[in-house]
């Protein structure tokens, strides 16, 4: 059943252009049905996991000889993140895309993006992971440029150049690994590397992997493209980029390679925690001075990704649970915030915070959804962002990383200040302007924002059962480290 996560979106991507030639307006329907089916299958995959790790060999060639697909706890978590946000963003697109032309191309590219991201999550083969990474990257470059105005093209070009450099660096690292281990199956590589004599080359390839996937994830020394690309894309695509793409193509791939293939150690731990600390603080400092709504959100993504990588880098069970929980929560509230910014832009035509104001009157649902998301990202109880940040901070104190814990708390405060600014300027402040003529957004945009806001509250209130059922299996995969190989290849 595992290839279904790639077959459905690919089939949708090929069907959409044909179907929309035959009958105009069928593109959103096909895209939404396929994304809904993907969401159902990814929720079902929780129960498949009860029978242990699932391995599918493509073409019947058993691993380590053929390409394999692997479904374990971490994969399930990522599949749910990708398909949940993808589905809601597609529902939102139905109304939002009214101002664009040839929208069927948007739905095609979006389906390709989903195929690439699901492929990254489910792949058990290093080169296959690279191919899916490229599919998702090409789709997202094109989607960033979808408006074909000068800003969008400029942002897309920057994103393309830096993303392509990242891909080349990753390919170089895969080449070094291939030369060392003579195999591409991730489980087999981890076995071969553990007995390999050339530790220096492995360390070199590890550095290249951190550089390449760090560029994809927008961690701080490599974050230059992120704000341009994420703020120029159409709003549902921004939600997808910030909520899902940087996590799947960056964080997921990096942690999978580092924890399960190469092996986690103290050097990696200190690199990850420092990258996290720097990303957190630099991201939030860049964000607080922004007046463009979406640009501000994009810089907050850099900062929040810092929390995720910091939690994962601590390497303790609690730290990894916190990091993964924050990854999930961030995908909820950051997508919601980007959808809100899209709703504001849809109704008022601008996203400059100093030109907005008083929107809580005419747009009550957008305004309350964005309030929930803002409080969530700033970490106020009982919303979901609070619990994950709390877990990360406790884990940092337990691991005697006091600097990191203090930075986490301070960054959280600055985040709160920054989102109070958003709330004040966009929604609550009184203004005597044409902005007041704004109307509430159409039905489909509203429903996906409401769904995300309710999820933020629900995950916040029910965080203990949620962590036990979803986050813990994923954390166990990372904590198991090189046992990954035994689970896939058997114990011979």
């Amino acid at each position, binding site marked *: 059943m595992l290839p279904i996560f790639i077959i459905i979106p690919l089939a949708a991507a090929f069907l959409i252009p044909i179907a929309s030639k035959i009958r105009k307006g069928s593109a959103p329907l096909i895209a939404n049905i396929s994304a809904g089916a993907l969401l159902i299958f990814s929720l079902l995959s929780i129960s498949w996991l009860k029978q242990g790790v699932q391995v599918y060999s493509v073409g019947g060639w058993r691993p380590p000889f053929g390409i394999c697909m692997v479904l374990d706890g971490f994969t399930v978590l990522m599949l749910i993140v990708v398909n949940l946000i993808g589905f809601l963003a597609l529902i939102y697109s139905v109304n939002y895309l009214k101002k664009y032309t040839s929208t069927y191309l948007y739905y095609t590219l979006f389906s390709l993006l989903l195929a690439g991201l699901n492929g990254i999550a489910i792949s058990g083969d290093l*080169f296959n992971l690279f*191919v899916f990474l*490229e599919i998702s990257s*090409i789709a997202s*470059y*094109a989607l960033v*440029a979808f408006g*074909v*105005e*000068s*800003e969008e*093209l*400029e*942002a*897309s*070009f920057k994103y*393309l*150049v830096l993303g*392509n*450099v990242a*891909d*080349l660096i990753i*390919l*170089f690292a895969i*080449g070094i690994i*291939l*030369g060392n281990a*003579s195999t*591409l199956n991730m489980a087999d590589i981890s076995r071969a590397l553990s007995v390999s004599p050339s530790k220096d080359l492995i360390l070199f390839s590890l550095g290249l992997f951190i550089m390449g996937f760090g560029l994809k994830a927008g961690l701080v020394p490599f974050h230059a493209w992120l*704000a*341009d690309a994420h703020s*120029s894309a159409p709003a549902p695509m921004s939600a997808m980029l910030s909520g899902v793409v940087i996590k799947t193509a960056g964080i997921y791939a990096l942690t999978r390679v580092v924890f399960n293939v190469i092996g986690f150690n103290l050097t990696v731990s200190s690199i990850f925690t420092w990258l996290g600390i720097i990303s957190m603080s630099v991201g939030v400092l860049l964000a607080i*001075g*922004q007046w*463009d709504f979406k*640009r501000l959100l994009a810089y907050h993504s850099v900062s929040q990704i810092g929390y995720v990588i910091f939690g994962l880098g601590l390497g303790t069970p609690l730290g990894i649970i916190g990091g993964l929980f924050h990854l999930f929560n961030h995908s909820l509230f950051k997508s919601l915030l980007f959808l809100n910014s899209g709703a504001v832009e849809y109704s008022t035509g601008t996203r400059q915070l100093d030109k907005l104001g008083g929107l809580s009157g005419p747009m009550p649902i957008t305004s309350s959804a964005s309030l929930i998301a803002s409080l969530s990202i700033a970490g106020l109880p009982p919303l979901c962002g609070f619990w994950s940040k709390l877990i990360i901070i406790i884990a940092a104190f337990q691991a005697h990383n006091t600097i990191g814990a203090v930075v986490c708390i301070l960054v959280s405060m600055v985040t709160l200040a920054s989102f109070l600014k958003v709330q004040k300027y966009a929604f609550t402040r009184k203004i005597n302007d044409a902005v007041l003529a704004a109307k509430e957004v159409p039905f489909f945009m509203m429903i996906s924002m409401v769904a995300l806001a309710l999820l933020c509250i629900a995950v916040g209130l029910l965080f203990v059962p949620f962590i036990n059922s979803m986050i813990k299996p994923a954390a166990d995969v990372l904590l198991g480290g090189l046992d990954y190989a035994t689970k896939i290849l058997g114990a011979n």
Partner: protein
Amino acid sequence: MSLYFLCFILFGIGIYCLLVKKNLVKKIVGLGIAEYAVNLFFILLGYKNNGEAPILDKNIIAGNFVDPLPQALILTSIVIGLGVTALMVGIVIRLYEKYRTFDIDKIRKLKG
């Protein structure tokens, strides 16, 4: 071993071209050079002196084959590179229509 270092130098030339040149088209050429350096690196991984094509036959003794796996991978990588380059050229043409220039210093609407 020195061949691998030459590959790295070629990769460096590509990245240098990408970083230093102001012209968008030259940047694309730089990325192309870097990409072919990586492809060359992969091919060299599977290369053997006096190796033979890996076709199993009665008269051919197995054991002196070149590794076919990197070659298969590089075919995929070349196709991906073609797609990315095509997309990049398309975007640069659109950028030229908007700004009437290829100079990256003059294409600056996004700041901050």
